[in-house]
């Protein structure tokens, strides 16, 4: 008698003893698992499908787009779409600039948010709740509300009339990177409030004993922060940094406002279909790109924009998710 039949017999025996309860329960469990697997597969497919769709579109030649018999596998496989898109987006230059700016910006943002988050979490000072409410307010206020005056202020940059005192007229900062970096240092960049909140949440959960031990041993306040608390907070800081990097990478709003002089991926991506039209017009091929063709080009451009992010995500997936779920978000 084989092992399997033996097991089956034992199972039937136990089933008989429980008046069929075991059988019902096992069947229910198997059914539940199958349902769950189908559901999870479906939801995953829902999320991944647009990406797959874009990949297949990006390899198609133009005639494939109009062929209704072609759904996902291109008949005329080509990589010319990538070449054209790279040319239109000035891809390599934009990639370099975007990496550089995203790194710089997220570094500034997270550095500032770490200081502020630490201050809110570990010290008692008057008006603390008031200031923290202001942090929440910063998260809530749509940046559009303050954009117009901020834009004007940086265009005619003149704090306290000092600049015009020396040079005669206010300087225009809008075409440099400076305004945005200043904003980031002042915790007013893209989603800075959120990073402050998350980092504060993390530092609040660190036991007080560690800090006190450091003080007793004669460690100063800043040194305690720098030597004791900061190494502890590596996961949450990494995670905030990753988010800041990724969100800055794809951001259009702030980039359009403050970084218009730079060739950024997000900006050239959003203007891609227009530049395709101009390209076709100049080359004398067509007055305007057809809708299908322009959307295929945009799909290629989107893919090329997110490929670096996807690579980062594959390697740092834990950094994105785990530390966030550990930080214990509470009201």
């Amino acid at each position, binding site marked *: 008698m084989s092992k399997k039949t033996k097991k089956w017999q034992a199972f039937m025996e136990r089933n008989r003893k429980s008046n069929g309860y075991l059988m019902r329960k096992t069947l229910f469990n198997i059914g539940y*698992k199958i349902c*769950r697997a189908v*559901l*999870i597969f479906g*939801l*995953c497919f829902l*999320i991944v499908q*647009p*990406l797959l769709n874009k990949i297949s579109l990006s390899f198609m030649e133009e005639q494939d787009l109009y062929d*209704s018999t072609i759904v996902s596998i291109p008949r005329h496989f080509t990589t010319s779409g990538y070449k054209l898109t790279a040319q239109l987006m000035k891809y390599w230059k934009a990639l370099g600039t975007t990496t550089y700016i995203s790194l710089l910006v997220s570094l500034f943002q997270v550095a*500032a948010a770490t*200081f*502020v988050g*630490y*201050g809110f979490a570990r*010290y*008692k*000072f008057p008006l603390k709740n008031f*200031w923290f409410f*202001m942090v929440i307010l*910063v998260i*809530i*206020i*749509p940046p*559009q*509300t*303050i*954009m*117009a*005056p901020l*834009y*004007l*202020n940086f265009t005619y940059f003149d704090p306290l009339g000092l600049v015009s005192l020396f040079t005669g*007229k*206010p300087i225009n900062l809008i075409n440099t990177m400076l305004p945005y970096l200043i904003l980031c240092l*002042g*915790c*007013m960049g893209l989603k800075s409030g959120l990073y402050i909140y998350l980092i504060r949440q993390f530092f609040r959960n660190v036991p007080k004993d560690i800090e006190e031990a450091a003080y007793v041993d004669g460690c100063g306040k800043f040194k305690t*922060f720098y030597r004791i608390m900061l190494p502890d907070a590596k996961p949450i800081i990494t995670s905030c940094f990753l*988010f800041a990097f*990724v969100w800055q990478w*794809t*951001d*259009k*709003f702030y980039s359009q406002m403050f970084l218009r002089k730079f060739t950024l991926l*997000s900006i050239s*991506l*959003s203007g891609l279909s227009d530049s395709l039209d101009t390209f076709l017009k100049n080359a004398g091929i067509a007055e305007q790109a057809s*809708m*299908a063709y322009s959307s295929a080009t945009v799909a290629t451009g989107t893919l090329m924009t*997110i490929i670096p*992010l996807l690579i980062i*995500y594959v390697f740092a997936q834990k950094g*994105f*998710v785990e530390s*966030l*779920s550990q930080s214990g*978000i*509470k*009201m």
Partner: protein
Amino acid sequence: MHKKKRKMTLAAKNAVAGYLFILPFIIGFLLFMMVPLVQSFRMSFSEVNIAPTGGGFTMEFVKIAQYNKAINVDPQYKILLIENIRGMLLDLPATLIFSFFVALLLNQTFKGRGFVRAIFFMPVILSSGVIVGLEYNNAMLAGMKDVIQETSNSSSITTVLQDMLVTEGTQAGDFFGFIFDLIDHVYDIAIQSGIQIIIFLSGLQTISPSMFEAAKIEGCTAWECFWKITLPMVSSLILVNIIYTIIDYFCRSDNEVMEYISNITIGKLEYGLSSAMSWIYFVCCLVIIGIISLIISKKVYYYE
């Protein structure tokens, strides 16, 4: 005789240190939030003129003319605003239920859980900023495809069902229409609920398993466990998620109202009008958050 130097108390020292740490925020807030906010408030009551020779700008007080213009004169703004709020109110429950459901699924143990989690959190990264806006163009293309399919006389089960269930006018018909609306943009909902899933998941993981064990021994079914343990334990996170979802919806870069305001600011240089519009928008946003969180916070159960 030495005069005894007055030393700061420990509390005072701590206060100074605390203020030093949050100094970047205070400076940033006052300079780049408070000042522009006040300025934009003033702008919204005035006509802003840019001086042609690059010597700054002037403001002319015009009372509530800009608000009047935004609401009564501008052809699109009011419609966009109402549509936007309606869309948010529809999306909010759907996003919450979806993310809670997915968090429950992902909290269970099964093979390949890490992989599935990675896929579900991918939208957090891939659907931000400029990419969300582009997704809409694709939706337009998909819409065209639908039209083509409809004319070619092929009908699917869902369309037949929709035709049967959605009848204009009756209450049940409206309800089903609402449901089909939701089903139609389930992709949008899945894409925007990444952070909410993480938040719910972190909440579910903090519930101690001993609580479920005790309940099970007392004869609680899984259904009862869900309503009596899981839901109350994550109820505070529901509030967090509601607020996050609302803010996210209002501040998303592909938000039509936002885009409209940006266009008026950068494209038409009508700073006064755009300030008035964004103030209306901000106040709407604040009022909705206030009302909803007031209602929900009454129901929240705090464990500690």
